[in-house]
């Protein structure tokens, strides 16, 4: 395995959880809901995935458990913001707080245990191809899911009737309601999908990236996923590009350090954040373009009139 291929693989691993969590949040936000609880749902997915894998001996069941728990946990947010019309920003932040605490409780007995790693794909011959072999044919299953999700969500949002309906709810929930669309039901499904994705992203952390459980192991990745959604101006393909760009900058700064140039590590560590701001500015400068993609009802509570 050459160094270039190896670095690309590292970037893919770093980008995958960001990509999956961001894609889930993208669907949620397209429906007009802002869920700031990604970090909390992700860490719940990580711990439940790990615990389920440890108890059953099957990392696949761990992945399943993480998805289910992520979706269920997001229901808490969904119920409060959709059925009880609480403020989405505050509820999302509370969800993160709760998730970080609850995951610590659940995982208390599992710290320091060697985890099970989800096996990577290996196709004799193909996986050994130079340069692209491992990248295309030798990665972990969740990587392939992340690519499938990207394509699937693109197709769903822009090629299906349900996707169109979802976007129209995000743009104007009142008129969608007037047309007889079940706004709340759609949003419940979107929120749960976002939770499931965050759970899956968490499972990637505790079953692929670093197969172990440590408290707060998401370490802010949920927040970066949130940033990616806006960075991508709510477009799935741009989320993919953003996640890989972010991964590349993160990994790149480590390589620069290891080469011993002596640039302050804090400066390098802040590069991804500064880059995000710059790209945000560049993208949003074109007002018309942004307006076209931004879900206009984002973050606003919707209560149907009778």
């Amino acid at each position: 395995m050459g160094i270039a291929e190896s670095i690309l693989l590292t970037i893919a691993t770093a980008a995958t959880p960001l990509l999956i969590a961001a894609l889930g949040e993208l669907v949620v936000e397209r429906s007009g809901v802002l869920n700031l609880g990604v970090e909390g749902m992700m860490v719940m997915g990580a711990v439940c995935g790990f615990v389920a894998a440890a108890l059953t001996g099957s990392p696949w069941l761990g992945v399943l458990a993480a998805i289910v728990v992520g979706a269920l946990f997001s229901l808490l947010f969904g119920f409060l913001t959709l059925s009880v019309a609480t403020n989405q920003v505050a509820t999302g932040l509370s969800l993160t707080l709760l998730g970080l605490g609850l995951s610590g409780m659940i995982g208390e007995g599992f710290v320091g245990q060697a985890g099970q790693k989800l096996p990577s794909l290996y196709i004799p011959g193909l996986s050994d191809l130079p340069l692209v072999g491992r990248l295309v044919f030798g990665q972990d299953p969740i990587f392939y899911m992340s690519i499938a999700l990207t394509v699937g969500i693109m197709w769903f949002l822009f090629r299906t009737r349900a996707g169109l309906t979802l976007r129209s709810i995000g743009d104007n929930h009142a008129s969608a309601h007037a047309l007889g669309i079940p706004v709340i039901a759609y949003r419940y499904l979107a929120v749960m999908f976002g939770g499931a994705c965050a759970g899956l992203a968490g499972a990637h952390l505790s079953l692929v990236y670093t197969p172990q459980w440590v408290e707060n192991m998401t370490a802010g990745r949920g927040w970066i996923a949130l940033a990616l959604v806006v960075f991508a101006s709510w477009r799935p393909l741009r989320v993919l590009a953003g996640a890989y760009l972010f991964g590349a900058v993160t990994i790149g700064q480590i390589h620069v350090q290891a080469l011993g140039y002596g640039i302050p590590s804090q400066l390098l560590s802040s590069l991804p954040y500064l880059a995000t701001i710059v790209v945000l500015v560049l993208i949003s400068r074109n007002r018309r373009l942004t307006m076209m993609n931004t879900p206009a009802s984002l973050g606003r509570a919707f209560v149907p009139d009778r």
Partner: protein
Amino acid sequence: MRVELIKRPQQSALFSAVSPFIALALTLVAGAIMFSLLGKSPLDALYYYFIDPLREVWSLHELAIKAAPLILIAVGLAVCYLSNNWNIGAEGQFIIGAMAGSILPIIFPDFQGWYVLPLMLLMGIAGGAAYGAIPALLKVRFNTNEILTSLMLVYVAQLFLDWMVRGPWRNPEGNNFPETRRFHVDAILPEILPSSGRANLGFVFAILAAIVVWFLVTRTLKGFEVRVLGSSPRAGRFAGFSAKKMVFFAFMLSGGLAGLAGISEVSGAIGQLRPVISPGYGFAAIIVAFLGRLNPLGIIASGLILALTYLGGEAAQISLGLSDKVVRVFQGMLLFFVLGCDTLIHYRVRLVGFGAKPAVEGA
């Protein structure tokens, strides 16, 4: 079964007053269940949470220390949120304010006198306001989403502080540990009642800020402008208000207050700069702002309550051996219940059964 909300014609005065108590009661019940499941006496646990920290005077001082930055930041955020500006980067403004205010005692330690502290406070406010102006500028000039830029700037501020404290500003007599020199006497925020505890003027600032901002929001034209632009930008434009100026006003006010909180914390409770000076006050304050329903006076209460759960959590850890995670879960539950119950102020709630028969009707 599903929940149905019916908008009230006007806010319910009854539920405005009662909903916090309903939320508290629900939290107590849910907490009691959780503590019993963990094998602890629920009454003991609740006692240590809510009563024990209030029994002694020194502990009340500690409560004030913990609540002061939360209230100061949340009051500024309330103005932001009322005017529909989503600043979630108060943590960064807190840090930059603290750093700006610390320039005097760190770089010019020989510059001493009674005037040092007021200057530091002003520089802290200016630093926070300037840092808050960045997302405002980006929003106005480039239409950039302020939630994201303000959040990204938090990380940048944290890393900047880290670098300064480990590098240029490191204490020359501190064995190379990552902290600045300790502030001289003139740069320390005085304590309110030194004989009984450590609480410093930061708490006084917090209360004053809350009262001033409350007056501003409810009794002045500016406050009217804030609320009009927040609830309906179009109406605001017709009224001749500038949405752009409001963005700057809201961000710089909340940034300035966060900066004041930062320099008060550093010059009061800490006495020097360190790589980390805030355990997430800027984020906790968002919750405080909403718990206080974006009302500056309500924020005083919610800030004190959130601070109490931290102190109570420690008491429960020490006395009952409850883990720190339980503390955070309990906080999360409290927040959910409070947020949920506040809905009752604006809406009637009906549970609609499968046969569409109203089951419960909330007043």
